[in-house]
Every structure is written in structure tokens, then in C-alpha cells.
């Protein structure tokens, strides 16, 4: 009898030792850097600006993005090849990975944290998964009235456990209510404009704005007043002017909302547009170094940082919001792809793809603090996104 007891006791002892040696830590200062070339991510921490580890085997990470679980422990990685991977930041390992489509562009996590949705190009539509298990919960193909499949872009979560997304090919905006996850109720807005290419939601989750590639203008949906339908704003903001060729699509996820103003990248122009959020009129244009890709506000909204499309992608500029002037031009290196602020904005991390590094700047002095090596880094995502609508 005693002999039988020894083994479990020993195992229990081992278990206790294991627990005692694993250091406990929070995840609030953690983040992820996407390494496009190697299909891997780096787990980093922003307090000491170090790399904690690397997780490999994530597939094609061109245009990869990340959402966080509500406990900010797990990262959901959306790969271009349709892979959806759940990564444990503390355990530094893949928890689960599913190939959910042929070609995807990004995702979103629901308000209650229980659902993860992925926007797909091929076949077009969104698929919704259980955040815990990654089991498929709902499949919403993006089929327009003519029966044609459309690429889906600009997928975000909004309050009320809903997802909002746009159909690139057919020019529609859909709102999927996921209160009964297996039976989504979808409201469709048709003819919103030609080729919505990306979209954003204001931080309060009220206004959904889709940028249009096929024409000048933005499609606006007020989620507090859906009956009013989709409105067109900034119609023809570049009328009569020759649009420049676009070598990289601007991203709207980082559109800067600074109090009453929205700063947005102009498509095919060397300008950042200033929109008055009260009446959705253009109230200014700020000439910048190249075609803006990301236009992101420092968390205090005083400054906005901008990076640029090829061939001007060696530069980052800082706009002072009150005076709408450029107060700093930085040259971090070849192919700057993304910028991410620490939760309270004292640092910004900048990925420099072709120099295989991430540079870290002080956002008050603009001095470079440090840099980290990363293999062809693209997106940088810190865990405070876990608690923000639309991120």
C-alpha cells in the first residue's frame, strides 16, 4: 500500500517544485513583434525593453496582425495563409493552430472576449471561432446580391458583441450581431462606395469609417443610429487633382482621433487630412514627406506619428496636433513598416524591415533609446490592445 503512495507523492512534489521555480509575472508590459521572413513572433517586454522569447511555426506572416485575449495572456495571430494561431505569451508556445481559409487579412475579438473573428479574402467572408478552443462557431460568407464572393476587409469589434466589416469587391458594410454566436444576425448596408480598402472604429466604438480606394471619400456608419444608414463623408476630397500611384495601401486601424479631430492618411497624396468629428468636414491638410501608411496618435493625442509608403519608407514624421505642423523628421532606416506606443506613450517602437531591427524612441525628446534585432519585422502589438475596442 505504501509503495503505491510514493509515486503520486513524488509527482506532486515535482509539480510543486515546478510551480515554485516558474517566475510569476503579469502581461501588461508584454508585446509581440511579427517577424515576416521567418513566420515567427518575438515576445518582448517594454519595461526593460528586452526580448523574452520567440515562437516559430506561424506560417505566412505577410500582413499579419494580432488580437489579445481579455486576460492579455494569449495572442491570436492572423496569418496571410489563413492560419489562426493562439499563442501563450507566458508559456511562449502555440496553444492551438487552425488553417481556417486560403487567404486572410486580419481579425477581431468580441467585446466579451469569447469569440475571435477572421476576415478572409479567399473565400471571402468572416469565420468566427470560440476564443478558448478555436472551434468554428459561425461562418458568414460575403456573398453580394449578384451571388459573387467578396474579399472582406476592415473587420472590427463593436459594443453589443458585434463585428463590423466591409466587402471590398461589392462595396458593402455588414454588421454581424453575435449575441447568439451560432446564429449571427447580419445587417447589410449596400452601395457604400467603391472598393472600401480598410476601416476603423473610433475608440468609443461609435463610428465605423471605411476608406475607399476606388473613389475619393469615406463611408461612415454611426452605430448609435444605424437606421440613418451609411453616409458618405469627405466626398471627392481630391477632385480634379491627379492621384499618385499607390505603392502601399494606407492602414486605417491606427487613424488618429485627437479629441474632436480625426487625422487620416490621404490615398495617393503626400498629405494627412484633418476631419472635424462633429460635422465630418475636412478642416485641414498637412503636407507630409510621402504617402502616409500609418497615422497614429500618441496616447495623450498631442502628437501624431506618420510613416510612409514605398519609396519614402525610410522616414517617420511627427505632427504637433495643436499647430498641425511637423516638428520632427526621423530616418530610422530602410522600410519602416509600423509604430506602436507603450500603453502610456513614453516610448514608441518602430519596425524597420530591411534593416532587421526594431528601434525604440523616447516620444518626448525623440532620442533613440535602444534597438532590438528582429527578422524582417512588420507589425508590433502591445497587450494594452486587449482592453480597447477595435484593436
Amino acid at each position, binding site marked *: 500500500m505504501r509503495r503505491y503512495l510514493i509515486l503520486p507523492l513524488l509527482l506532486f512534489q515535482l509539480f510543486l517544485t515546478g510551480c515554485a521555480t516558474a517566475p510569476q509575472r503579469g502581461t501588461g508590459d508584454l508585446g509581440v513583434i511579427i517577424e515576416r521572413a521567418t513566420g515567427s513572433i518575438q515576445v518582448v517586454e517594454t519595461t526593460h525593453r528586452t526580448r523574452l522569447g520567440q515562437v516559430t511555426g506561424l506560417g*505566412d506572416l505577410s500582413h499579419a496582425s494580432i488580437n489579445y485575449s481579455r486576460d492579455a495572456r494569449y495572442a491570436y495571430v492572423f496569418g496571410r495563409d489563413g492560419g489562426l494561431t493562439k499563442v501563450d505569451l507566458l508559456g511562449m508556445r502555440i496553444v492551438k493552430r487552425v488553417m481556417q481559409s486560403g487567404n486572410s487579412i486580419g481579425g477581431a475579438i468580441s467585446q466579451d472576449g469569447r469569440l475571435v473573428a477572421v476576415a478572409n479574402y479567399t473565400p471571402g467572408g468572416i469565420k468566427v471561432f470560440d476564443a478558448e478552443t478555436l472551434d468554428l462557431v459561425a461562418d458568414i460568407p460575403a456573398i453580394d446580391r449578384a451571388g459573387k464572393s467578396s474579399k472582406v476587409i476592415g473587420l472590427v469589434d463593436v459594443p453589443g458583441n458585434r463585428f463590423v466589416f466591409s466587402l471590398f469587391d461589392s462595396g458593402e458594410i455588414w454588421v454581424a450581431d453575435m449575441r447568439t454566436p451560432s446564429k449571427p444576425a447580419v445587417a447589410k448596408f449596400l452601395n457604400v462606395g467603391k472598393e472600401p480598402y480598410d476601416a476603423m472604429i473610433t475608440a468609443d466604438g461609435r463610428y465605423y469609417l471605411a476608406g475607399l480606394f476606388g473613389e475619393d471619400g469615406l463611408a461612415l456608419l454611426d452605430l448609435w443610429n444605424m437606421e440613418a444608414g451609411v453616409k458618405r463623408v469627405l466626398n471627392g476630397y481630391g477632385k480634379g487633382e491627379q492621384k499618385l500611384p499607390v505603392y502601399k495601401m494606407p492602414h486605417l486601424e491606427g487613424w488618429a482621433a485627437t479629441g474632436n479631430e480625426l487625422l487620416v492618411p490621404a490615398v495617393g497624396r503626400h498629405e494627412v487630412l484633418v476631419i472635424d468629428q462633429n460635422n465630418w468636414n475636412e478642416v485641414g491638410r498637412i503636407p507630409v514627406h510621402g504617402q502616409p501608411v500609418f497615422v497614429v496618435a500618441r496616447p495623450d493625442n498631442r502628437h501624431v506619428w506618420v510613416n510612409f509608403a514605398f519609396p519614402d519608407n525610410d522616414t517617420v514624421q511627427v505632427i504637433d496636433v495643436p499647430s498641425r505642423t511637423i516638428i520632427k523628421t526621423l530616418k530610422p532606416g530602410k522600410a519602416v513598416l509600423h509604430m506602436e506606443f507603450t500603453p502610456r506613450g513614453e516610448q514608441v517602437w518602430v519596425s524597420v524591415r530591411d534593416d532587421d531591427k526594431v528601434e525604440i524612441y523616447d516620444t518626448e525628446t525623440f532620442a533613440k533609446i535602444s534597438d532590438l534585432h528582429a527578422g524582417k519585422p512588420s507589425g508590433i502589438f502591445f497587450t494594452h490592445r486587449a482592453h480597447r475596442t477595435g484593436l
Partner: protein
Amino acid sequence: MPNKSRRIRCAGTLLLAIFFPCLAWADSPSPPRQAELLNLVRQDCGSCHGLRLNGGLGLPLTPAALDGKSPDALKDAILHGRNGTAMPPWNPFLTEDEARWIVQMLLKGLP
């Protein structure tokens, strides 16, 4: 002097012909430029066409997807863009020979 440089060039071409038999025609880009171009195709074209060129907002550019397409038309699409689509003209950054070389590489599959 000119003689010597020609000899070097000949030797270079010969070496290229040995190591890359199908690449070494007269107007193929220099090896460092080739590396730049491959990075451009993977990374910058990859923004729309996917790092593995399986497509995205842009069409797939794998050998299977391009099979049967005219190399000249593909070269023109690279240089002048495609009207009515998001494909921009790359002629400010590429010569005709470079575009032709990129098409050859795409049709074979990138290394």
C-alpha cells in the same frame, strides 16, 4: 586597361553562365541588384500579392497562377500598372530589363 576590364567582365559572365545558366544573358541585372529586386518582389510586391505570392488584394503571382500568360504583358503590367485596379506603375523604380528579369523569375518561381 579596357582590355583587362573586358576580360574581367568576360570571366564574370562565364562564371554567371556556369552557376546560373539561365540567368546569364547580356542585360540581366548585376548580382547585388538581383538581390535588391528579389527583396522588392517578396517584400513590397508581397504587401498586396502576399510574401509567398499566393495573392491578397493583388492576384497570385506563383508560376502556376502565371502559367500561359505572356511575359511581355506581365512586364508591361509591372512597368505601367493595370488600369482600373490598385496595381501601380513601377517604371519610376525599374528598368525594362529589370522588369523582364522579374517576370522570368516569377515564371520560374522565386528562389
